[in-house]
Structure formats: structure tokens, C-alpha cells
């Protein structure tokens, strides 16, 4: 019995120790450095990125790049900040809260072979990624420039026999668009709503700036209580939601971000306020099923502006492989690779060299090409305040408070005055929290 016991103990020990020896042997083998990118997709950009990285890996066998594709809202907006705060972030990430996460970015400048190339080609956008007070850091690639603005369903205008306002005027107001869209919706019959807007304070901000909103006081602190332009746009917007001009479901019937892009693609919306990132998706989902197009941003005393924005691919400062990360970023930022990325994804380029020479977008759809040209033409019309608002580190605090409180005004839980007062309180409280 004792002999049997000794044999069993020996077997047990071998069974326990063997996997440890085996795993340590594996660790000693020369594996490539694995880098992880946290990514989200609006369209086909994940597939394009994978293609590009496959080529990179073939030329650089010492680096393997894994793309972790996550949902935008839950993955990028909610989980990524917590991961970064906990020091458990990826090596590289695609972000839209450009300045808000800047404390977690890795300054690539010491690792780049040619920082001047980055300054020359991404100059104005590098500042969006920098923490307060930093004027030198290079933190990532602005590989998607977006502009907010409206799409229309021209086919519905034609069916209704209503003239598209921007065909005859360069400066159409929001009220004129609303009136025209209402006429179309009434003429084409049930199931079509005049207007819709993404459920986002960022989307609301462009129209508000056009109507003369100032957003900040003289010290640069967000101040909306006395902002007449903001109030005017808020009043129009709440009224349109309440009287059925706007698709009520989007703002009243959701939490967080919501986009009625499917309703527009299903020809249920005449005029849709969204942004340039929808082009690739509409090229796929709508194609030439009806004539859709981008029209210039409506005008007001503050101009005819949309909001700039976009997504950047940034390096994260907790990476254990900064040099390898910089090599991947240099590859993705190189003009040839980036040009292909924009051509295939149909994203408007921020890269100055590429923007100045133009991109041959890979689409056979004339409507998509025309839409991209129209977005490019919108860039010079963006007001300086819109750029300031986009560069403001805590802009999401403003945008989210605007979104949530205007929703309450739409549903009647708050009067417009109370909603604006609550927006200011929410901003004050959150900014105070950030100071602790």
C-alpha cells in the first residue's frame, strides 16, 4: 500500500510540474511582439485596416498586430476610458473623444524617424490630441476627418414636386429647410417624417453655432444660460420634435447616442442631420435605390457651419512596446498607406498632403462621389468657434448634458428654461468633479 502511495505521489508531482516546465519552454521561444488595437467600425474600415496590417506584418515579421473590434458606444465610449484609467488599455486605440483621453496617450515624437512629416501633414489636428499645455507632443494619426451636416432624399423632393431650397440659394436657413421638408413629407404621404437628427449634442452644436451660439464666456468657461443663439436653436429643435417635424423616436425614445440612419436609408426621412461618416454606409445600404445627397449646412447669423470632428488612431502610454507601436503608427500614417485607407473607406482625409492632391475614392457611385466632394467643400465654412468647441477637452460633458436635458424638454418633463438651467448645472457639477 505504501509503495502504491509513493508511486501515486510521484505521478501527481510530475503531472503538476510538467505543464510549468512546458510553458516556460514556450516563453523562451522567440515570438513576435504582439500589439493590440482597440477598434470600432462605422463601415468597412476594419477590413481595410486588417489588409494594410497584413502587409505590414509580412514586411515586419517581428511584430504581430491584433485588432480587437468593439461596439462604438459600449467599447470605445464606456469601457475604453475605464481600461485606460486602470492601466489595462491596449497598445493602440481608435478614439473619438480626442482631447478627453489625452492623458493616456503616448508621445510618439522620441520614437519617430521623421516627426517633421507629422507636423507638416497633421499640423492642426495634432493639437486636438494634446493634453493642456502641451504644444509639441505627437500622439496619433487623425485618419478620419468628419464634418457634421445634412443629407436629403432628393427623390422624395421630386416626387412631392417641391424645390430643393439649396438649388436656388447658397444660404438657406434652418427654418426654410424645415418648411420645405415638411411640405415633402405631407405630399408623399404616411410613413415619411420631414427631419431627423442624430441623438448627439455634437450634432446639435453646429446648427446652434450657425444661429449665433457662443457656448463659452470670456474666460473660456462653458456658459449657456445667457446664450441667445443656443436658446434659439434649442427652441426650434424642441418645437420640431414636439410638432412632428422631427422624428420623435430618435431623441425621445433612446438613451445615449442614437442615429436614424436606417430610417433615412429606408426613405422614411426627407432631411437627415448627421455627418460625413455616413457616406460609406449609405453607398452600401442605399446605393442608387434613390437619389441621396449632401447639402450645405443651413445658415444663420453665426455662419453656415457644421462641427468638425473625427476619429484618431492613438498610441497608448501603458504599452510595453513603444518602439514597435511607433513603427506601426509610422506605417499607417505614411502617405501611400493612408491614401489607400481613405480611398477604400471613403473617409474624408485630414492629412494635408492627401487632402491637397485629392483622393481617388474607390466607388462607382456618382452620388457617393458627389457627397464626398460636398463634404470637402464644407470644410472652409467651418467657423472658428466650432473648431474651439471640438478642441475643448471636456466637450463631451457639454454635448451629453445638451442631449439629455433637451430630451426632457422635448418630452415635457422640463420647460426649455429649466432644461437650459439644468444643462449649465450638469456642466458645472461635472467640471467640479474633474477638479477633485
Amino acid at each position, binding site marked *: 500500500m505504501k509503495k502504491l502511495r509513493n508511486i*501515486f505521489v510521484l505521478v501527481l508531482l510530475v503531472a503538476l510540474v510538467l505543464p510549468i516546465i512546458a510553458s516556460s519552454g514556450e516563453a523562451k521561444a522567440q515570438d513576435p511582439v504582439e500589439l493590440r488595437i482597440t477598434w470600432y467600425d462605422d463601415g468597412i474600415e476594419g477590413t481595410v485596416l486588417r489588409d494594410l496590417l497584413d502587409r505590414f506584418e509580412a514586411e515586419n515579421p517581428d511584430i504581430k498586430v491584433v485588432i480587437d473590434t468593439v461596439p462604438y458606444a459600449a467599447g470605445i465610449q*464606456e469601457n475604453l476610458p475605464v481600461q485606460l484609467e486602470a492601466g489595462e488599455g491596449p497598445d493602440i486605440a481608435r478614439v473619438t473623444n480626442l482631447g478627453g483621453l489625452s492623458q493616456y496617450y503616448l508621445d510618439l515624437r522620441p520614437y519617430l524617424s521623421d516627426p517633421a512629416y507629422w507636423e507638416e501633414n497633421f499640423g492642426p489636428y495634432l493639437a486636438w490630441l494634446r493634453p493642456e499645455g502641451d504644444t509639441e507632443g505627437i500622439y496619433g494619426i487623425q485618419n478620419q476627418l468628419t464634418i457634421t451636416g445634412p443629407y436629403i432624399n432628393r427623390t422624395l423632393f421630386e416626387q412631392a414636386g417641391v424645390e430643393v431650397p439649396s438649388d436656388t440659394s447658397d444660404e438657406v436657413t434652418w427654418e426654410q429647410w424645415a418648411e420645405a421638408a415638411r411640405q415633402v413629407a405631407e405630399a408623399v404621404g404616411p410613413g415619411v417624417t420631414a427631419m431627423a437628427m442624430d441623438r448627439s449634442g455634437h450634432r446639435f452644436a453646429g446648427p446652434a453655432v450657425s444661429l449665433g451660439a457662443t457656448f463659452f464666456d470670456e474666460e473660456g468657461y462653458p456658459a449657456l444660460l445667457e446664450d441667445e443663439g443656443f436658446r434659439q436653436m434649442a427652441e426650434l429643435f424642441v418645437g420640431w420634435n414636439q410638432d412632428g417635424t422631427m422624428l420623435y423616436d430618435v431623441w*425621445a425614445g433612446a438613451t*445615449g447616442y442614437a442615429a436614424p440612419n436606417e430610417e433615412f436609408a429606408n426613405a422614411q426621412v426627407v432631411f437627415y442631420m448627421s455627418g460625413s461618416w455616413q457616406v460609406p454606409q449609405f453607398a452600401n445600404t442605399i446605393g442608387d435605390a434613390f437619389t441621396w445627397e449632401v447639402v450645405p449646412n443651413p445658415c444663420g447669423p453665426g455662419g453656415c457651419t457644421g462641427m468638425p470632428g473625427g476619429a484618431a488612431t492613438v498610441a497608448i502610454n501603458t504599452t510595453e512596446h513603444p518602439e514597435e507601436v511607433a513603427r506601426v503608427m509610422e506605417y499607417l500614417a505614411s502617405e501611400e498607406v493612408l491614401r489607400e485607407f481613405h480611398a477604400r473607406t471613403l473617409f474624408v482625409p485630414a492629412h494635408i498632403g492627401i487632402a491637397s492632391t485629392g483622393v481617388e475614392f474607390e466607388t462607382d457611385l456618382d452620388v457617393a462621389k458627389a457627397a464626398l466632394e460636398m463634404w470637402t467643400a464644407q470644410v472652409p465654412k467651418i467657423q472658428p468657434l466650432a473648431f474651439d468647441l471640438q478642441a475643448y477637452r*471636456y466637450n463631451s460633458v457639454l454635448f451629453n448634458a445638451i442631449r439629455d436635458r433637451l430630451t426632457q424638454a422635448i418630452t415635457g418633463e422640463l420647460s426649455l428654461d429649466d432644461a437650459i438651467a439644468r444643462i449649465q448645472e450638469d456642466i458645472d457639477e461635472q467640471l467640479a468633479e*474633474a477638479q477633485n
Partner: protein
Amino acid sequence: MMEANRPRSIGEWISAIRHGAEALLIGIYSGLMIALEIIINPIQRWVGFRRMAYLFLLPNMAIFGIFVIFPMLLNFYYSMTSGVALFPEDRTFVGTDNYEILADCDDFTDPNSCDEDFFWRAVYNTIVFVFFQVGGMVIMALITALVLNREIVGRGFFRSVYFYPVLLSPVVVGLIWRWILQRYGVVNGVLAQIDPKYEADPVLFLLKGDWPTFWVIMISIWAQMGFFTLILLAGLQSIPGVLYEAGSIDGASPWQSFRFITLPLLMPTMFVVLVLALIRAVQVFDQVFVLTGGGPGTSTKYMVQYIYETGMRNQIPRRGLAAAASMVLGSVLFIFTFIQLWLGRKSESV
């Protein structure tokens, strides 16, 4: 001799394999027991026979401590802090400030007069939800259990049908009903077929008036009722049939049998169902979040959604405030759980 021992038929092969498998299992079992003896014997000599029970409880208590007690204590500490830092040591201690913010109201009946109006809207919404959902569900579950306790045709089938929604994920339930009830959903499609006016003017079940609250409660009852029906059914079946026979001999009507036999004997089970349903109702979140997103406005935003959004969703998350709100919610749940345990012990002693 070897030839003679070899199995000759399929039956003998199966039997031989079975014996072999049994021998293998016995071998493994014996080996494990020996290994266990090698480990346990010295420990038992060291801690003593009587204390061995605590040692066996230790792994479970460790898991409970790490995943329940420690987070609760951490959450309590968080509720006393402020700032955006994630790690407790980096956060600013503010004492009871977060609780004071939550309680700062000029008029507790009007959320608009409160500093943290979203919290109070969530509190009132949760109270309304709990009252109607729990009340409605207990009544519906009782009626269903009474019907399914009778000798009806297809009783087994109906028991399965009522229990089936319990097996669905709350997210799936929310999505299915959203497709059914939304502007261009199934119900409005059917209504439009019946009367074309609904094509132009569909009923906004999830957006207008009291419809959203009504549907949130109804769907929640539909999704959970089967579970409570099953508990009540077990309670009904434990009532001795002789009592009904005795009642029948005394001339009791069906209503009198229910009133004076079924209801009193079912009451302990009813209390358990009530408390369990209350606990679940207070925790409502995922299903409603998918169905209405808490809207329209905040009319179906409940406590857990408030905590989630305050602590997780904002660019500057107010984790301290969210932790304080979750302590309030935890206290309510603690009271309900305590009542449930007390009732459970009371019924055991009876």
C-alpha cells in the same frame, strides 16, 4: 485458454468494456482518495478534527469575501469620495457629501426641485414599477398556478409555455418586444392592416403617454411570471387533498375552499414569492434598457440605470455619487432579503 476468455458477441463486448470502465473509474477514485488522504491527514492533525468544518468552508468564504464583501466595502468607501480617479487611494475623501447631494430636495414630491433630479425620478419610477409589477405578477402567477393545478387537458404543455419566457435572456426579451411595439413594429403593422389610419398615425407604444410604463410592466410580468407560477404550483400541490374532501363534505363552495383552505395554507409560499419578486423588481435594468432606453425622457429610467449612467457613462464619471446611490439601493435590497430570510425561517419552524 486465451481464446476461451475472448468475448464472442456484441453483448459480451459491451459487458467487457463496462467492466473495464468500472475498474478504471475505481482506480481513479482510489487514487484521488489516497491523494486526498495524503493532503488532509496532516492538516487534520494540525488544526484538529472539530475545526475541519471551517477549513472546508474556507474556499467558499474566500470567494464570497473577494467577490461580494470586499466590493461592498469598497463601494461604501467610494460613496465617501469624489473625483475622477479610479483607484481608491487617488480619490478625494468627502465624507457624506454624496449622500447630502442625493438628499438635497426642496420638495421630495417634485424631482425638479432636487439637486440630483435624475436620482429622484429614478426612485419614483422604481416605486411605481415595483408596486404595479409585483402586485400584477403575484396575482397573475397565483391565477395561473390555480388553473395549472387543475386536471385540465394539456396541463404539461401549458406549464412549459408559461415557463418558457423565464429561459430567455432579458436582452432578448427587450429586443423582441421592441420589434413588436415600435413605430413600424408588428402591432402597428397589424393595426394598419385593420384600419389604414394607423399607417399614417401609428400608436407610439414606447414613446407617448403612459404606454411605455404600461408595457415595461406588462413585459416584465410576462417574462418572469413562469418562475413564480412554478413556486406557487409547488405550494398548491403540498396542500393535503383531504382538507378539500373535508370541506366538500361540510358543503364548502369552491370560493370558500379557496378562501379558507388554499389561501391560508399557501400564504407562506406567497410571502416568499412576494419578497423574491420585490427584490427582482427593484433591480430592474437590462430588459428596460434595451426596450425603451429609460425613455421617453426619463419616464422608464430606474435606479440601476441611474447608477450605471452616473458612474459609467459620462465623460467625467461621478463614481462617488453612483456608489452612494447604489448604497441606498443596496439597503432597500438588504431589508427585503432580511424579510425573506425571516419568513423562510418562520415557515420552517412551523
